[in-house]
């Protein structure tokens, strides 16, 4: 498998991006509507003529406007998964997947491969249905199987879960994750959902006004966003660790420090031993001088590094987590700050209720 390398300019849409996705890597692309994310996908897939563009997959040059190279879409081996599954309505589910598998195989081999991919996404029992008889989540899983059955070198996902309700998205996400991380294929994932970024991506790229605003490892960009959009979507607390039992995460231990246990709601199907992230909002954090007893299951002793007034709330920043990840944050009222007499350098307890903590597969790969 091969790296994807893209450089594209589309003047009419104000697009000017450069990006690179390594083999086996998932790059999440975030950005406001109209930032040029889908245009980028169209250029990579050869569906849109760019003013100036170079698209390479490994040794293969797919687009090179300077040298007049433009490989047609059907010869690019670039899979596309869109918000609309776009299953061919006149073909059955298995017929849809076979259509993609036929490219490199005779009929019986294609059927076998189609069945294998349907099983991979847990849709083998839907094989004989018509697309009109599928739910949104089922249709999207079949669309994923179909895209993979064509054996693309690169998979481009343009908000594949955005059209699904919360439950269907949560059920489809682990399937997408399994397929995306199964082999060393490069993948690009456009999304609006921070959970997708945390659970599916290795690196994140933020696009604003047709340009790359920032790019880097997920944890780094979310912890210290340098772009306006990054700052808006980030601002959540993220604790990385390993699932020790259902609903319980042990945070990465630091040098000489034990890993703290975090209790939360598993958003995906998780198995003990798996890398997991705990995600919670600073607004869900309560601050105490003394260790609280009772209902809040999660409490950690932290040292305050700073306080910032942020509208009607004060954000309390804690020191770095034991594993070096960015410090946790708590949003409290100015009254509470005054009452507790909070100052930088002091030690306080941060507590969060179990229900406020979401546990997600993937550790955001530092």
């Amino acid at each position, binding site marked *: 498998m091969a790296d994807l390398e893209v450089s594209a300019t589309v003047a009419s849409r104000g697009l000017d991006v450069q990006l690179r996705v390594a083999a086996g890597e998932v790059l999440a692309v975030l950005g406001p509507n109209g930032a040029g994310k889908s245009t980028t996908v169209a250029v990579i897939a050869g*569906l849109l003529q760019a003013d100036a563009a170079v698209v390479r997959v490994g040794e293969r040059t797919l687009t090179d406007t300077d040298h007049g190279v433009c490989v047609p879409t*059907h010869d690019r081996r670039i899979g596309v998964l869109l918000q609309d599954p776009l299953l061919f*309505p006149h073909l059955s589910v298995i017929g849809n997947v076979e*259509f993609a598998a036929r*490219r490199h195989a005779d009929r019986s081999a294609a059927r076998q491969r189609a069945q294998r991919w349907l099983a991979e996404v847990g849709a083998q029992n839907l094989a004989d249905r*018509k697309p009109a008889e599928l739910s949104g989540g089922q249709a999207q899983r079949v669309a994923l199987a179909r895209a993979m059955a064509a054996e693309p070198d690169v998979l481009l996902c343009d908000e594949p879960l955005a059209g699904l309700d919360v439950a269907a998205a949560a059920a489809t996400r682990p399937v997408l994750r399994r397929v995306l991380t199964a082999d060393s294929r490069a993948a690009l994932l456009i999304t609006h959902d921070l959970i997708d970024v945390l659970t599916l991506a290795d690196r994140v790229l933020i696009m604003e006004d047709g340009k790359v605003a920032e790019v880097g490892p997920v944890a780094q960009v979310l912890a210290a966003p340098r772009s306006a959009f990054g700052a808006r979507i980030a601002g959540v607390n993220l604790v990385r660790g390993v699932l020790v039992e259902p609903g319980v995460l042990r945070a990465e231990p630091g040098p000489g420090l034990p890993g703290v246990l975090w209790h939360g709601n598993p958003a995906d199907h998780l198995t003990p031993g798996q890398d997991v992230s705990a995600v919670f909002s600073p607004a869900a954090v309560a601050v105490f001088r003394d260790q609280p007893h009772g209902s809040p299951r999660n409490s950690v002793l932290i040292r305050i590094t700073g306080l910032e007034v942020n509208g009607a709330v004060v954000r309390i920043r804690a020191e770095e987590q034991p594993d070096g990840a960015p410090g946790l944050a708590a949003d409290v009222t100015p009254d509470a700050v005054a009452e507790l007499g909070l100052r930088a350098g002091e030690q306080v307890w941060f507590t969060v209720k179990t229900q406020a903590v979401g546990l997600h597969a993937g550790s955001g790969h530092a």
Partner: protein
Amino acid sequence: MRPIGAPGVGLPRWVYLPAALATVFVALPLVAIAIKVDWSRFGSLITSPASRAALLLSLRTATASTLLCLILGVPLALVLARHRGALARVLRPLILLPLVLPPVVGGIALLYVYGRLGLLGHYLDAAGIRIAFTTTAVVLAQTFVSLPFLVIALEGAARTAGSDYDMVAATLGAPPATVWWRITLPLLAPGLVSGAVLAFARALGEFGATLTFAGSREGVTRTLPLEIYLQREGDPEAAVALSVLLIAVAAVVVVGLGARRIAGWNAGG
């Protein structure tokens, strides 16, 4: 007071009067002709040798011209639906011209292309091929007038369907020819059926262009409408019976098309 089941803003009441008149205007001639038929002789009238020859010729030529419309019209409709450029803007009105052109004029125009002294007929004649006043001329005349019906119906269907499925098929590695046969055409099946039915119906009723370009030779170019026109002088009862036959065929076509549209195609497929 509004009738139950008609919520929202109603039509002014007077609108129903012209609407009713229009219905009567269309229905009354059909009723009149049905009354006029001598039903006891109906069977023998429509099975006379001349009538049978005309009916068979009509069915054969209309089928042939519908096939020709499909072969030529489907690619044209797709080209028009997918292209937004100046070419499509010039092409569309040109193709639709036969729709509003008097058929007699169409027939004359065809003569000047395929007739013995016509643009192409000149060369065809030299090669020993004669088209005017043959069954081939009937098929060409019918194709000329019915092609726009098929193109209009199909272009609309193709526009509505869009090209998203074709795009996905391409990303799955299907070359354009595969996409055309396995995705584009099957998805256009409903439009194809209604377009073909419209073209067939129009071909079946073709009169003016056929008479001008192909003449009226029994068994060769005298189709059902021509036969009816001819019989009107000599045997009015036969003309009426054949008219009813043509109305029946048209009704089957229209009802069939309507049912097809209502049933949709997703459930059947």
